[in-house]
């Protein structure tokens, strides 16, 4: 049973426009969320994160929004650039796992294509 869901396998956006990637989660014990970006034949690269005590975190062109009541988060990229074309993974951590392990629970990813 997937605890982190990215329901859109792919997304195409025109260069300069906004890209919005969505993620839903089911485990209410998750309290830290991350977005990773992945290029082919490479490992995931950390992009931005947000703690459950916040509802927004911004870093340059990237903003992550968290709606705890809806168990939903989104990543906004403004403006989108061709170099942003990659697979984006949403991931979550529960610091209450009891095992003392901050294992990441990933979604299946969304492939973003930014068209020049």
């Amino acid at each position, binding site marked *: 049973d997937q605890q982190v869901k990215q329901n859109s396998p792919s997304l195409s956006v025109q260069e300069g426009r906004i890209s919005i990637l969505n993620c839903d989660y089911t485990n209410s014990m998750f309290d830290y969320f991350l977005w990773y970006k992945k290029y082919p034949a490479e490992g995931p690269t950390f992009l931005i994160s947000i*703690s459950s005590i916040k509802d927004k975190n911004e870093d340059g062109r990237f903003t992550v929004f968290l709606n705890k009541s809806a168990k939903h988060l989104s990543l906004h990229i403004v403006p989108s650039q061709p170099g942003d074309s990659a697979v984006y993974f949403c991931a979550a951590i529960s610091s209450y796992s009891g*095992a003392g392990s901050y294992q990441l629970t990933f979604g299946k990813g969304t492939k973003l294509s930014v068209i020049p």
Partner: protein
Amino acid sequence: EAGVTQFPSHSVIEKGQTVTLRCDPISGHDNLYWYRRVMGKEIKFLLHFVKESKQDESGMPNNRFLAERTGGTYSTLKVQPAELEDSGVYFCASSPRLAGGYLQAQETQYFGPGTRLLVL
């Protein structure tokens, strides 16, 4: 600063053979994680080392998988004997260990490029 490195980048073996994957974390990182992505599925946690100790191995699929981290530096993941369903990409990640006992942004996990394993 060198990133997480993994060896080999690719491995093709026959069912029943043994394969050993290696991960070298970022220098000074006490936490080392192994993950696996089977084709079409999400990236899944396998296990977590803190230095040389196994902190959490709840994600290990079965006893054909053996992970070690002798000396608390590099780690190996051995699959013996390999089965067809073991095919996938095996990622290693590392993060520093910070004081405080609660998760901080600085404990972000940094991933290696992965080892692509194909069992025929």
